[in-house]
């Protein structure tokens, strides 16, 4: 069964770049709509649900509303529909808003899809394939591990301080108590980084010029062909737009 996680990261990156660049180049609402649809369908096929996009969709709806309002007020494309003082509404504002919304949707959904469905270790291997020294490439999985740890640490500090009577329920209280939370967090961050650095050195990190992996990435010929097709496809869109 089709699983996005199992695809080679180079194919996923090409797909992501294809979507982003096509969305930026093309002014066709139809093409952008199709691309957005393809992202959603591929997610649905792979994960059997669109749950991963839930939060992002809410954020996009808020942004979409802002885009609509801005285009409504400042859009000057199409025919003048209504004028009242300095407020002038033109007929093109809906098409422009839809195009902007689709573009933002494609860019954010495709980047999110790439980030969520690409294992950080696969990304590191991809960078190593591109001749990046492994000491730098391996920073990707390390950073991917560091973020949830620090979020957990911050949560645990907030919980323990909240339990200790430091008001930490509302946004205002959280902002007011930021120094109280940030100081121990910084201390913890420094300690974790220091321990992690020593731990990796003592586990032979940098001992050899190269390192191996338990599960290697492997570009299947079919995936290679898909990459070529995507590049040709983007070339086609580019030429069509220029002409």
């Amino acid at each position, binding site marked *: 069964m089709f699983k996005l996680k199992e695809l080679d990261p180079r194919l996923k990156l090409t797909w992501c770049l294809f979507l982003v660049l096509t969305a930026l180049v093309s002014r066709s609402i139809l093409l952008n709509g199709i691309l957005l649809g393809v992202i959603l369908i591929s997610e649905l096929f792979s994960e059997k649900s669109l749950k991963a996009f839930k939060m992002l969709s809410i954020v996009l709806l808020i942004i979409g509303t802002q885009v609509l309002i801005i285009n409504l007020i400042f859009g000057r494309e199409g025919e003048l529909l209504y004028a009242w003082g300095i407020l002038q509404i033109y007929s093109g504002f809906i098409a422009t808003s839809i195009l902007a919304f689709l573009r933002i949707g494609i860019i954010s959904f495709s980047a999110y899809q790439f980030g969520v469905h690409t294992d950080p270790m696969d990304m590191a291997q991809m960078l190593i394939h591109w001749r990046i020294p492994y000491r730098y490439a391996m920073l990707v999985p390390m950073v991917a*591990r560091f973020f949830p740890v620090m979020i957990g640490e911050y949560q645990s500090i907030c919980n323990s301080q909240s339990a*200790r009577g430091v008001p930490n329920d509302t946004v205002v209280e959280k902002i007011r108590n930021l120094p109280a939370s940030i100081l121990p967090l910084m*201390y913890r961050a420094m300690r974790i980084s220091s321990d992690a650095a*020593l731990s990796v050195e*003592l586990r032979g990190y940098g*001992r050899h010029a190269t390192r191996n992996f338990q599960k290697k990435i492997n570009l299947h010929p079919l995936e290679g062909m898909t990459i070529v097709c995507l590049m040709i496809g983007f070339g086609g869109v580019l030429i069509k737009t220029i002409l």
Partner: protein
Amino acid sequence: MKPIIQLDITALTFPDEPEPALKNIKLNINAGEFIAITGGAASGKSLLLHTITSAAPKFYPCAINGTVTVADQNVSKLPLCQMADYLGYMMQEPQNQMVNRRVTDELAFGVANLNLSQDEIEHRVNVVMDFLGIRAFSDRTTDALSGGQAQKVVLGSILAMKTPILLLDQPTAELDPKTSSELYRHLGRLNREKKVTTLVVMDKSGAVLKDAHRVLVMEAGTVKDFLTVSEYHKKYGCRKNNRRAKPFQVDERYDVIKLSGASHTYKGGITGCQPLDFSLKKGDFTAIIGQNGSGKSTMLKLIEGLVKPSAGSVELFGTPVTRKNVGELRRRVGFLFQNPDDQIFCSSVRDEISYVLKNKNLSAQQSEQKIQETLDLIGLAGLEEMHPQRLSRGQRQLLALGSVVINDPELIIADEPTSGLNAAQSQVVMEKLAHLSGQGVTILLVTHDLAEARDFANRIVVMHNHQLALEFEAPKMDNYLNDLVRLELIEGGDF
């Protein structure tokens, strides 16, 4: 037998410190030996291990007058990463040492750095997963592991490298008694069968002594004694029974905490705890014990109002805990967390202790009196102006206790407050809790230390598989040993 580790250190001194942190250490450790290291707070146990790995001075800058040799190599001449050929080192706080998101990637990290073949990496990872019983959670992300699971994963990553020397700094600090015994049994087997030289900084339980050959006793940065286990037992004796004499004054009519069918399920359907019916009477001192991942922490979070019950209800001081009143109720409760660094944030001991007094209408004189009383109680008088991070871990835990006690809480909830502390430090923290209990404060303690629960608590509650499985009077623990074995908390003959 030929020594595999040789230390001849006259002095190891950190910059700006007048006194050496290690001094006059002359040690020979033979290949295949199993050494337990013990000593009081700041006695230099962890630093000794750092010195053997050459992390001091390469990672922690310091001046060493002397030499350290590992497998006939002067460690000062080897790059830090090359030490991986000779030794595996597991420090305290396993979560800090993991650098990969997936458990299997973490297990393979060290072996992959050694540039072994893919088949060999796969083989070694599979062997350690079976050896340490990691397979059950091998598909999890590392940030979702419990403390005990993280400890196993870090150890597994080191074992997979098959180094001839293992250095472990309190490897069982966050493990329940049964898992600790299992781990020491594994280490003992490795030592006997593979002749792996093992140095372990032992925790307060002393369970490692079953497998150790010799005990290194550190004091004030130097070796006080280097004894066989039997000599150590003769000289330092076993852990004494500290059962408190003062009776508990429990008011059976008043429930300080009441859980009625309260359960919690985390996102993704992971069970935190199944429906719990539990009450804590006024003046009681109840200890909750249970395996890692048995639901103890979730139960505390329910009581603290940090998570909402998925079903049932939670009452504190006879009032149902709601989002609106949780802040008010928390002011009557003191929480002591496992890691004191989570709750310490001020820049001096005095500021830390007096933080909660800011919201109270006390005169300067009253505040000062309370601060002094609290400092005397926790034994930190004279250190008022010191930065909390300069205190030892035990002192920081006492400071956290002081910052809780000064608020005159009616209930203290302590989540493994002695985890990572040595026997003497633990004793001090527990005696302070017992003192407060004697003054009528209700105490709920979560611990992995059964002796601590037996000696200081009035009642013991056992959690197993996210449920309350057993409850008994603490002094009668010996009558329930078979039940504790059945509930996988101890192994037969452990306690």
